[in-house]
């Protein structure tokens, strides 16, 4: 008989398990069924939104590993996504290589570029590291815009459909399965990374890098590893984005996008596995609600409003939400979820 409090683990495997009870497994399977049957009841538009959310979650998880777990602030994440996008686009469109090669190469290339721009992290941190990652953003975009023979420069370049073998991911549903599959693998990796030696080293570096070094953790090795892993996922995300949109232009990877990613992981909860997922879903759905529902309603119904008022509401609400989260719940939605679960377990008692 299960008791409402305390744990009863008799093996290491039970103690380390992510899903520890039959209820956990049932809910998890139910979630997977709900996700993977989505194409049966969602149209192309909502599948497109889900695809964009999936792509964004992969990049946000990468940034969370770098910033949330290892404490290395990066405000150039969109630049690393662009590296992955263009790597995959060039390899598949110009060189005719298969999509899986483009996908993995996108991750590796973005990871290596991330490591290069992560070298300053060995000497600087905090605000100064943020400036160097902003420099990465601008340098990468400049290179993309001026390497015209390879990237098409300012004009951009077309990107073919993703394909594996003879299977071409043309329809929105097939792209959904591809993107959500890779997203699930990414979430699984990130959750387990936090429980490995490397994950614990990242946290130690974040909490006190001097103490971590004294304990024998190599800052050089683990900081660069964090940059590589974080930017690897950014590259994977970029590759999926390129093949989903079908056309690449450096304008798609602005500094504003990089800052928005920081906002997503803050709202979701830094340093948690669930945080990037909650943050991305929350902000993307908020964006849809404002852009698709609220603004057209205001524009068409209240024509006496000052010019630009209705369309200005969306960015205003975005900024307000980020500020409110920083003030009221700086630990993000993941912390709120933890509090809810704890309250549910203890209900009707409060402690």
């Amino acid at each position, binding site marked *: 008989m299960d008791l409402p409090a305390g744990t009863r683990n008799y093996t290491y495997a039970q103690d380390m398990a992510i899903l520890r009870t039959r209820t956990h497994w049932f809910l998890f399977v139910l979630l997977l069924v709900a996700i993977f049957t989505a194409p049966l009841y969602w149209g192309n538009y*909502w599948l497109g939104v889900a695809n964009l959310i999936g792509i964004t979650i992969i990049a946000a998880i990468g940034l969370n590993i770098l910033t949330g777990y290892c404490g290395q602030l990066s405000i150039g994440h969109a630049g690393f996504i662009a590296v992955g996008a263009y790597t995959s686009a060039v390899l598949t469109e110009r060189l005719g290589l298969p999509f899986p090669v483009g996908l993995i190469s996108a991750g590796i290339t973005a990871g290596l570029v991330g490591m290069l721009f992560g070298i300053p992290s060995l000497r600087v941190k905090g605000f100064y590291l943020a400036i160097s990652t902003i420099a990465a953003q601008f340098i990468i975009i400049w290179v993309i815009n001026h390497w015209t023979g390879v990237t098409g420069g*300012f004009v951009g370049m077309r990107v073919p459909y993703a394909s594996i073998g003879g299977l071409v991911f043309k329809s929105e549903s097939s792209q959904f399965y591809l993107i959500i599959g890779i997203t699930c693998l990414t979430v699984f990796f990130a959750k387990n990374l936090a429980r490995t030696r490397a994950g614990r080293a990242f946290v130690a570096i974040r909490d006190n890098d001097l103490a971590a070094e004294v304990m024998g953790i190599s800052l050089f090795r683990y900081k660069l590893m964090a940059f590589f892993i974080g930017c690897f996922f950014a590259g994977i995300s970029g590759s999926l984005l390129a093949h989903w*949109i079908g*056309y690449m232009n450096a304008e798609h990877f602005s500094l504003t996008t990089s800052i928005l990613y920081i906002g997503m992981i803050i709202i979701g909860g830094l340093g948690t596995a669930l945080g990037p997922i909650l943050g991305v879903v929350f902000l993307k759905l908020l964006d849809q609600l404002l852009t698709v529902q609220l603004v057209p309603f205001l524009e068409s119904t209240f024509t006496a409003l000052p010019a*630009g008022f209705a369309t200005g509401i969306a960015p205003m609400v975005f900024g307000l939400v980020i500020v409110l989260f920083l003030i009221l719940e700086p630990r993000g939605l993941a912390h709120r979820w933890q509090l809810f679960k704890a309250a549910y377990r203890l209900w009707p008692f409060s402690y």
Partner: protein
Amino acid sequence: MRSKRLLALSVVLCLVVVAGMLPLAACGPTAEKTLKIGMTTPSSGPAAEKGSPMGHANLDCIKYVNEELGGVDGHQIEVLWLDNGYDAAKAATIVKRFIDEDCLFFTTASSGMMSAMMELANRDYFPGISSFSSPVLTHPPRHIYGQTPDYGDDWAAFARYFMDNIWKGPGKPRMAMHLLNNPTGYGARDAARALADDFGIEIDFDNWVFEHATTTTSEIASLTTILDDDIDILYISSTPAPTSIIIKNAVELGMFPDMLIGCGHASFTKALIDLAGADVVEGVYGVYPTVDWDDDVPGLAKVIEYCKKEHPNDYGNMDYIISWAQSLIAVEILRLAVQNAGIENLTPQVVEEQGFKKLKDFDVGGLHGPVTYSPGDNRLSKSVRVFQIKGGAITPVSGWVEAPLVKYEEYDWFGK
């Protein structure tokens, strides 16, 4: 304990059912047959100074057509308008929404946003019109149409006017270019690469061609590099905010008004005068594919009436005129499609074949050049006019100048 588990399971099941039903909630009882089109403008974000009046004009014109003209052959036009915020990923989901919502075609204002949407639209054979076009959108010609001449055509028309009417010096005039770092700017560069030699204009593409971002705050550094190069003319292909900064910087360096400045149509609107100041931009030339507010053309009366009634702050902004004309073209496309194929048979592909490709000499009330589809040329209107800013007003100095078709896809440097 067991009741808590059951409660949790039932809550989760309810959430799953609700989440699954939400996207279907938009479905309602079938209404009278309407003609549905999608329209998207960057009404917020870095291009809002152009996108906002354009969005207003799109909707005001459709309102005029529905209320005063009874729609298209008695069928009301239903517009699904969405703000893309000049965000490429959002624009990609918007075009999917248009397709999902059974829109017959879509319109957009910006060439930058159309470049994010065009591949998705082309893949689904979903036709679209962009107010502002660039060569990459319509070359090779597929399912994306440019309402007006593209940014390359702007350069070609302005260069032709400059050589025929302004340049009196010996030899070749020396031209520098300042380009927005997207298809808006580089469309003009591509035209210059293709035609500069033919026009007898000297352009050093390595040293006299600069780029800038929409967020630029100063171009003193780039302009300083050409201070001693005896540049006769600076051509700017950008949006109003960066253009105003470049012109101010040119004045500060003493380059203007000694050097002539010409602007592409993406920046040459009332917003430029408001941002830079009338005294700063006095004498600047520009091209625009529409008439201006003081012209005497039949179609302008309704534009002025609705603008003053619905969005008086947009009065004087030429972007409003271009989007009004875009909506008139959309209405004509629907009318042709209904006439040729019947309302029951309309699909995006049918509308393209029986609407878009049947456009011939359609007059948008004189607001811009006649609209005609030519096979192999997805520019619907091919003429621009040259204007000059005099006394704080944009004044026409030429008639309609037709821009030649340049087959960029035949140049091996195109798209590189």
